[in-house]
């Protein structure tokens, strides 16, 4: 017995790495199958790159140019220039980091809260479920954007993590509800009952047996929450209720509309359109990529 | 001579299926579900259609009503219904009128055959209005009579929503809907499968009574040999979308000719007999690969297969006056 055990472990590990490899190969095949998915994937990669390296491409203080105030689109200013003569493209690229990092954190927190609470509610049922679901109903009922706006008066949104945390706190309701109902149906299945019968700990069952089965749903929601988070945070900056500490897309929108008067003076229009374009392209990328993710994780679509 | 002619006219088939082909469109191409079926359903008799799941028996009866759901599609053939015409070629409005009024169907999922948001009584009225029934009060009275006969509290059922009834009750309501417009041809597609043994027996008993009383033509689709033995005058055995054997049930069951029918009969565990004597059918039911092969669909599982069976498909030939079999072993004797 004692001799055989390591062997099995070893065997398992190699099987696992095989599986990993084939999963990535499978994922790649799924992405390249349709051009739309590949475009989505490339857009997401591009924006991730922008978020990580964007600020290093430009000096910390972006150059201003009094002769290029609201400069039209040109080779030097591919997206025009703002009210100080700074390139809009540079602003979009350097502004991506805060927006994307906060959105990623927002998605992570949303998914973490939603998944853990949904799993617990669905697995332990009884009063745990009742309490969690009452809180979920509450979170779902309170209009989240006004809540964010009000919270902005006490919460310092300077750090992307802080922004992400608040986005997560206000946004987990829908996911928790969905994960709960999936967990409830899973816990009645044979293999979970068998695991319970074997006396495995609830934690083990929740995270090793149930979580992988709701994984696809969670992966989809992770991406969807990224778009939701971007809209919410950019919206907060756009409304100007959050103090501007770093340049980002929302700040650009706010300054363009409320300071530069882009709505009535066409020369300031590129300044308004640049961040909008960034948001729309990223959204498009995510929507296109979701299709691939759906096929990767949804067993019903697999192999069809 | 003339006596024989008279006899023939009296037993003109209630439904006459000719050259029927139904396919299911899938990603891997068209999957034939019913293939080249010719079938006469005798009037005023109970015909049992038997076969494993996937043998095409449900598709066949749905095709008789021209109600094959997507992705299924009727490719060719005709279904001549007595007093109606060819269900596959008459105009849509006449087809609609024939459904329910001439052909009543209780289908497999009859528990879910009711609109969950309307009371049963309202749905009876909807049915009456769709078929231009003049006297709706009379229709409700008929519904009550039928429900009472089926052993239910008729007033309560008519005032109920689907979710207020049990599965067995819904199934009986489904039977009521098939009979209420006095359809002369009634098709029960696994209509009692979901019921427990006792309700199944009582529902079948009522079906038998109504069949006699109203002079119905009843088609009983089932995978339960016991039900066929008990109820049917004639039996039609389907395998892989084809009819492999048909004939009077007492003869077919006592002397099955096709090896598949023989297998089915042997697989019935007799309650009185020894369970060890029930022999399960070997092998898996027909699948896509089987359908595409040129030979007999039963070849893979057949205990008496010959080389010829792999090369060509046996056609259904009469072996006696009212019995047909599709098997080289049986038909090639002479």
């Amino acid at each position: 017995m004692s001799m055989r055990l390591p062997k099995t472990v070893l065997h398992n590990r190699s099987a696992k790495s095989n599986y990993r490899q084939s999963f990535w190969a499978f994922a790649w095949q799924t992405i390249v199958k349709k051009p739309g998915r590949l475009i989505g994937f490339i857009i997401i990669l591009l924006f991730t790159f922008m978020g990580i390296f964007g600020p290093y491409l430009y000096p910390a203080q972006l150059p201003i140019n009094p002769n290029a105030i609201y400069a039209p689109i040109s080779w030097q200013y591919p997206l025009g220039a703002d009210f100080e003569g700074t390139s809009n493209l540079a602003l979009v690229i350097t502004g991506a980091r805060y927006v994307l990092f906060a959105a990623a954190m927002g998605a992570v927190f949303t998914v973490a809260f939603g998944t853990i609470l949904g799993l617990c509610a669905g697995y332990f049922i009884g009063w745990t479920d009742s309490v969690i679901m009452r809180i979920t109903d509450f979170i779902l009922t309170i209009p989240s954007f006004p809540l964010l706006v009000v919270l902005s008066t006490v919460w310092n949104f300077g750090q992307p993590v802080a922004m992400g945390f608040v986005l997560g706190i206000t946004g987990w309701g829908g996911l928790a509800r969905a994960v709960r109902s999936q967990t409830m149906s899973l816990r009645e299945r044979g293999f979970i009952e068998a695991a319970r019968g074997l006396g495995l700990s609830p934690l083990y069952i929740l995270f090793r047996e149930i979580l992988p089965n709701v994984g696809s749903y969670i992966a989809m929601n992770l991406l969807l929450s990224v778009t939701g988070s971007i809209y919410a945070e950019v919206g907060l900056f756009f409304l100007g209720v959050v103090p501007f500490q770093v340049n980002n897309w929302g700040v650009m929108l706010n300054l363009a509309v409320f300071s530069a008067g882009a709505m009535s003076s066409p020369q300031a229009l590129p300044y308004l359109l640049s961040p909008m374009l960034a948001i729309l392209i990223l959204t498009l990328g995510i929507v296109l990529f979701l299709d691939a993710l759906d096929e990767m994780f949804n067993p019903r679509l697999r192999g069809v | 001579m003339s006596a024989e002619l008279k006899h023939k006219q009296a037993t003109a088939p209630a439904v006459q299926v000719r050259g029927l082909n139904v396919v299911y469109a899938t990603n891997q191409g068209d999957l034939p579900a019913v293939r080249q079926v010719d079938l006469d359903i005798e009037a005023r008799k109970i015909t049992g259609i038997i076969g494993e799941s996937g043998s095409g028996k449900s598709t066949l009866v749905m095709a008789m009503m021209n109600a094959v759901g997507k992705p299924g599609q009727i490719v060719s053939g005709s279904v001549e219904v007595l007093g109606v015409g060819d269900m596959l070629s008459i105009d849509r409005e006449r087809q609609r009128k024939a459904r329910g009024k001439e052909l009543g169907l209780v289908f497999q999922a009859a528990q879910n055959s009711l609109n969950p948001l309307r009371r049963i009584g309202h749905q009876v009225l909807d049915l009456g209005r769709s078929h231009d029934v003049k006297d709706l009060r009379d229709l409700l009275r008929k519904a009550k009579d039928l429900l009472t006969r089926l052993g239910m509290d008729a007033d309560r059922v008519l005032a109920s929503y689907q979710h207020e009834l049990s599965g067995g009750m819904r199934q009986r309501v489904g039977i009521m809907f098939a009979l209420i417009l006095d359809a002369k041809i009634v098709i029960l597609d696994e209509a009692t499968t979901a019921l427990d043994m006792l309700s199944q027996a009582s529902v079948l008993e009522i079906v038998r009574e109504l069949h006699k009383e109203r002079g119905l033509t009843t088609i009983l689709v089932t995978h339960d040999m016991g039900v066929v033995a008990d109820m049917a005058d004639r039996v039609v055995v389907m395998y892989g979308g084809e009819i492999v054997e048909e004939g009077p049930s007492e003869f077919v069951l006592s002397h099955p000719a096709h090896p598949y029918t023989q297998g089915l009969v042997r697989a019935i565990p007799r309650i009185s007999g020894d369970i060890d004597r029930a022999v399960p059918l070997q092998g898996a039911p027909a699948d896509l690969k089987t359908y595409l092969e040129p030979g007999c669909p039963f070849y893979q599982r057949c205990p008496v297969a010959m080389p010829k069976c792999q090369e060509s498909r046996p056609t259904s030939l009469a072996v006696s006056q009212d019995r047909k079999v599709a098997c080289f072993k049986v038909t090639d004797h002479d």
Partner: protein
Amino acid sequence: MKIVMIRFVKRLIAGLIMILVVASFTFLLVRLMPGDPVQAKYDQLLLNGLTPIQAMDEVRVMYGFIPHQPLWIQYVHYLSQILHLNLGQSISYEGTPVMRIILGAAPWTIILVLTGTIASFIVGVLAGVIAAIKRNSLAGSAITISGSVLHGIPLFVMALFLAYVLTTIYAILPFGAPYNAALTPGFNGPFLSSLARHALLPVFTYALSSYGGWLLTMKSSVISVLGDDFILASEVRGLKTSTRIGYIAHNAILPLFTILALSIGFMFGGSLFIEDIFDYPGLGNLLVNAINSRDYPLMSGAFLLITVAVIASNIITDFLYSVVDPRIRR
């Protein structure tokens, strides 16, 4: 009917508890805010030469509670003031009761949100039915794509776009006030038409922002109902096409009621953008302005009222749902 009433009462109680929680939240928010605005105001009044008692009275009128007292006494006082529909006084609108300002703004938002919701619901549901039935045709895909695209565009982008196109490039729609200030408010033609013209742009934006969601949900709902056994049964029984379409529509639309509640919350959230961009004087605009001018009593009041409006709409939606779905009545 009794079960519907019990459900309604339960929802009502849950709603009241939610309002209590939100009121407590706004209380704590203002009270525990960095720099404590209540204390700051009190200190400032003392510096301005008021006696401590005068200053205390002033602050109490403004915020609804008194500094220098244990938190829970302030809390009880605050809640009793809310029960008397007193939300304190605004800072930016010099001494005007918050309640009066909010009640002045609320109708604009509520009417606009409701009109927008109803309009988008009707159009979205109809389009969803067509998209589902004709899902294999070009028209069907075109409708579905229109829904996905509109569903994906952020509200503020949509609002800015519409404002730019319809008021700047083609100045066909008015912008700003809810009606032409030169007209006398009342039940007269010119006033009403001015009202409608001014509301058109915001209502259209509200409607457009949720149209896609309705369309996509209705489409998938219809498709799932089309696969239900009872629809096949109704075909096999020879029901008329019109009756069958009625069965399908009735069954497909019910799940949408549960989403209606969430949608209303979303719409009220959207009012912040729409009213800010179109400069329309509703609750959303009020909330944003209150925060930008650090008018905390007004902020708490506006937020509380938005929440109450959402909770009330939820209760009404749920009540309607339990009336139309017999499965709840049991």
